[in-house]
């Protein structure tokens, strides 16, 4: 009796204290915005939050990471105000939710990293078809003739390749498989692309969780190959993994850097439609890096009230102007939107009511 009474009393007291702390914390009528979705875009949102909140104290922005699919779904349902996604809203989803806007916020890219003892500082060359064959199990050894042909003079080891893929739904998988689909008809026919694909069974392959997991798996397993978002470039370098040169549509081998990714972005500027739903994977251009994409904010153009809509517009406008400066983007190795795209995005933002 005594114990349960004591416990009950202390439990109620604790809850009361928590409630007091909670209500004391908020003595203002701020607009709350919740963003969720892509884990690729999440770090950038987090970098934006401190400065945006300082400049706009009336708006409380919460950032979450649940995956692009959840981001779109929850934005459509109105659970969150901003859904972050590495993929624009697909045609079939657009049909179900015609009021969803896909608004690019920045440009990200992805590197193919590998762990080959002795070769991690030489950027070995790989291509979409070769990678597709590796992840389908058709090429199993590093010194396969197809890889050797691409890397003359490089002493590739006689060892099984360990392909590492994401086991959780991921925008990185999405753009990686888009690259494979765009460059390899065999892949496009069978496995296609998506945030999760049905990875073929290969002995020794590893499924890792998150970019951090990809990094750990690649670093721990020599002779592995993994696709890792460019925001992790610093960690990749620190762990001593190699960065591959990828064959782009023009047949040239390029590394992911500001020039090549910028070239990819610029090549689709004129083709970008007003709803901004376009892919820049495997873009045209001699210098274009083949795995680059817009990072989208998926927002419902019809918001429940004007204050929320205004707050969303304020944030998104800030994001594509002040937020697109290199002081933020350089921390995640993203690139700013081309000016023409910023205009298109601004037009879409104005539609949010």
């Amino acid at each position: 009796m005594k114990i349960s009474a004591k416990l009950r009393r202390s439990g109620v007291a604790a809850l009361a204290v928590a409630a007091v702390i909670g209500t004391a914390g908020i003595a203002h009528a701020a607009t709350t915005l919740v963003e969720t979705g892509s884990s690729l875009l999440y770090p950038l949102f987090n970098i934006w939050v401190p400065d945006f909140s300082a400049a706009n104290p009336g708006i409380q922005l919460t950032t979450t990471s649940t995956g692009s699919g959840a981001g779109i779904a929850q934005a459509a349902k109105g659970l969150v105000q901003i859904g972050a996604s590495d993929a624009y809203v697909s045609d079939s989803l657009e049909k179900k939710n015609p009021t969803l806007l896909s608004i690019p916020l920045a440009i990200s890219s992805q590197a193919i990293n590998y762990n080959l003892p002795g070769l991690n500082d030489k950027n070995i060359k790989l291509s979409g078809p070769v990678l597709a064959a590796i992840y389908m199990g058709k090429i199993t050894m590093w010194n396969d003739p197809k890889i050797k042909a691409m890397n003359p003079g490089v002493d590739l080891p006689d060892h099984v390749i360990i392909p590492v893929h994401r086991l959780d739904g991921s925008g990185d998988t999405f753009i990686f498989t888009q690259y494979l689909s765009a460059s390899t008809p065999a892949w496009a026919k069978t496995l296609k692309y998506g945030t999760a694909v049905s990875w073929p069974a290969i002995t020794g392959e590893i499924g890792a969780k998150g970019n951090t997991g990809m990094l750990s798996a690649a670093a721990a397993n020599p002779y592995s190959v993994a696709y890792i978002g460019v925001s992790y470039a610093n960690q990749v370098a620190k762990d001593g993994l190699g960065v591959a040169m990828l064959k782009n549509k023009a047949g040239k081998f390029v590394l992911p850097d500001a020039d090549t990714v910028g070239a990819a972005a610029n090549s689709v500027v004129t083709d970008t439609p007003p709803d901004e739903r376009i892919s820049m994977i495997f873009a045209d251009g001699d210098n274009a890096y083949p795995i680059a994409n817009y990072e989208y904010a998926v927002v419902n153009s019809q918001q429940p009230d004007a204050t929320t809509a205004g707050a969303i517009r304020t944030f998104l406008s800030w994001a594509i102007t002040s937020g697109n400066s290199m002081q933020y983007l350089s921390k995640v190795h993203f690139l700013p939107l081309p000016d023409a795209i910023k205009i298109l995005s601004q037009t879409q933002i104005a539609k949010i009511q």
Partner: protein
Amino acid sequence: MNLSPFRMTLLGLSLLIPAALCAVVLFLLIYSGQAIGFNGLHFVTDINWNLGDLYDDPVTVKGIQIPSGANYGILVFIVGTLLSSFIAIIIAVPLSVGAAIFLAEAVPPRIRPVLSMLVELVAVVPSVVFGLWGIAVLIPFIGHYIAPTGNGYGLLAASIVLALMITPIIATTLLDALMQVPKENRESAFALGATHFEVVSKAMMPMVRTTLVGGIVLALGRALGETMAVLMVSGGGINILPTSLFSPISTIASFIVAQLDSAESDPTNMAVRSLAEIALVLFIITLAVNAGAKILSSGALHVRKRQH
């Protein structure tokens, strides 16, 4: 039957638990209804899991709209779940029993609360932290010293992590029970000339058998349903059945977490319905395991009665 208000209140509270279970199962049944009809029996026999093309127009198969190319088969995950939980129990039970016995009998009474609290603290470690530790410490260890291929991710890592997570459940309940064994049983066993260890193993342990089985069943339940830690160390096997302790696996629970977000982008909703169906299969497995444990434990009791 005594219908006192006291008993009725208690009964009412107790019935809330099965009610919650039934609510969840009912939800899953209703939600996955279409998927059950579509997937049929090959759901549990097929190795291949494919969400299909989520960005293209859906096609109609058997009168139901699904993404083109979609195929839902979960044999891989059933095998992964059963194997990892089974191996986890094999590892955890001896560890828990040993630890509980040592704590109850061999440790000086003054240190006992500290050590038993340490054991309980293992239960406090969040699942994700076990996963992080697994990646940082366990997987390199397995990779260097145990695995023939040098790859630490896989069935063994998942089983060890699960075992560590469920050990406190068995150990703490067993410890409590051992401490409650009446002094007379211990003293009479000593009087008969048994060594200290024999007193514990032959006189005390049989008395706490029901508690032990109860703890194991609880632990097994937790192992079957564990998601985060397994997700991080299991190697994410898909479309491939495990062939050794070092093969990558996926358990049902970790697979649902991994796929849920992608499934939400399926415009036909078939993917989430199939995920709900997977959850139903896990329920059936848990039911079967619990029923099996019940039969085994009542069988054991019968044997004991006959010997007396």
